[in-house]
């Protein structure tokens, strides 16, 4: 039974990093997953719209959920911010009948009624839970040659756990994401633990008010990654990517730390392990050079 999802691209990836979109489409094609494109709007951002006008945030999120419901498919997101908004809105509407009725009052004029019939997933959820490591493993043709990778899950993917992963909470109501580490091990890379692994990248601070302050947070992360001899960073979000890539470039100009830590979106690393053509993975848009890592991967060390 082929798996089918509505691909939720968000605002940033299709415009700033279309390579991640291409890599995602190619990877999922290789895994026989069908994708549907729907006229989604901005999710809207948990870091902007939700902070300034909760009702508008919920109504627009609900509309996006309705589009997927009307197509009868679950949502697949490749951005942490989007998955956070859509998962939280989905739960809020399912669990709060008053809120749901108010939102449906707003939407009915436009032909939408929220039903609560679909699920929202991040690419990592689809790969790790829906497809499973075995199915992924079948497509791996090229090992990632023990590249030491620091996974940066980001915040919006899994916090707060009671909303993002309610079925996977520990007894102490906690959740520690492992999907990216396990997937990367499968692909032949070496995921490395590091201090402050779960610290925010700071991106929202930059987008909203103070880019330099945001970069200070990113610098803290980069320092710890270097201490643990990490060679590359893996992320599942374009905002986190921007901090570690463009942000690192800005930090280099200011501090000359010489981190030289390139960042990949997880779809790009999977694409490399699947042996996909470099030109299909958006590998030319990175500010911090990927060449040393790509060389190591190609050499099959």
């Amino acid at each position, binding site marked *: 039974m082929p798996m089918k999802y509505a691909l939720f691209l968000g*605002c*940033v990836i*299709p*415009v*700033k990093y*279309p390579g991640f*979109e*291409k890599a995602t*489409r190619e990877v999922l094609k290789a895994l026989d997953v069908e994708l549907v*494109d*729907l*006229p*989604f*709007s*901005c999710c*809207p*951002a*948990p*870091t*902007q*719209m*939700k*902070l*300034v*006008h*909760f*009702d*508008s945030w919920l*109504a*627009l999120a609900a*509309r996006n959920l309705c589009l997927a419901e009307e197509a009868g498919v679950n949502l697949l997101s490749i951005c942490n911010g989007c998955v956070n908004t859509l998962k939280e809105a989905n739960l809020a509407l399912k669990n709060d009948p008053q809120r749901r009725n108010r939102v449906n009052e*707003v*939407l009915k*004029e*436009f032909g939408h009624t929220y039903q609560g019939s679909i699920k929202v997933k991040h690419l990592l959820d689809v790969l790790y839970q829906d497809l499973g490591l075995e199915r992924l493993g079948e497509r791996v043709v090229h090992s990632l040659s023990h590249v030491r990778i620091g996974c940066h899950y980001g*915040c*919006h993917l899994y*916090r*707060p*756990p009671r909303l993002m992963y309610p079925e996977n909470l520990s007894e102490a*109501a*906690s959740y520690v994401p492992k999907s990216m580490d396990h997937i990367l091990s499968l692909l032949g890379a070496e995921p490395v633990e590091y201090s402050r692994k*779960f*610290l*925010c990248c*700071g*991106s*929202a*601070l930059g*987008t*909203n*008010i*103070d880019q330099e*302050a*945001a970069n*200070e*947070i990113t610098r*803290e992360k980069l320092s710890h990654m270097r201490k643990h001899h990490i060679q590359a960073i893996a992320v599942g979000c374009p905002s986190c990517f921007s901090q570690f890539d463009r942000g690192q470039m800005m930090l280099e100009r200011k501090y000359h730390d010489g981190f030289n830590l390139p960042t990949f979106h997880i779809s790009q690393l999977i694409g490399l392990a699947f042996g996909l053509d470099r030109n*299909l993975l*958006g590998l030319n848009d990175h500010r911090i050079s990927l060449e040393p890592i790509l060389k190591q991967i190609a050499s099959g060390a």
Partner: protein
Amino acid sequence: MIKSIWELFNQEDLFECYQCARCTGSCPAAMVLDHSYGPRETLLRCLNLGQEAVVNDERIWYCTTCQVCEDRCPQEIHISDLLTAICNLAAQRGNLPEKIKFGVDLVAKTGRTLVISDKVHRDRQKLGLPPLSPLAVDEIEGILKKTGLNEDLDLS
């Protein structure tokens, strides 16, 4: 339009806080502000001085919405929901950074936070990507009219 942060956050939950400061210790905003500001104090000010003591502070926008505060709170207080409530009211009152104003206005007018230029279309074509679905901007405008976005906020 909200008149008080208590419409979006349950005031009684604040009584659970025993000021352990685990939230501030984990907060990236507090980190860059040298811990002169953080969730612990914000919560205490709300509790003891009321919402007016926090709603005009520009520093509330330093919150990255990382939710670590909420995740680590031993009393399971939904601290990030408190910040959301404060920011919502603050925005209504005009305490709203320019960058956010611009971003939200762009969503209201185009349905997206980034503009789609011709270059974007060309770059996508080069990669063999499908063209972006045209957005029902009228629908989005209509929805936001009903939720009162431009009534409650000055996005000019």
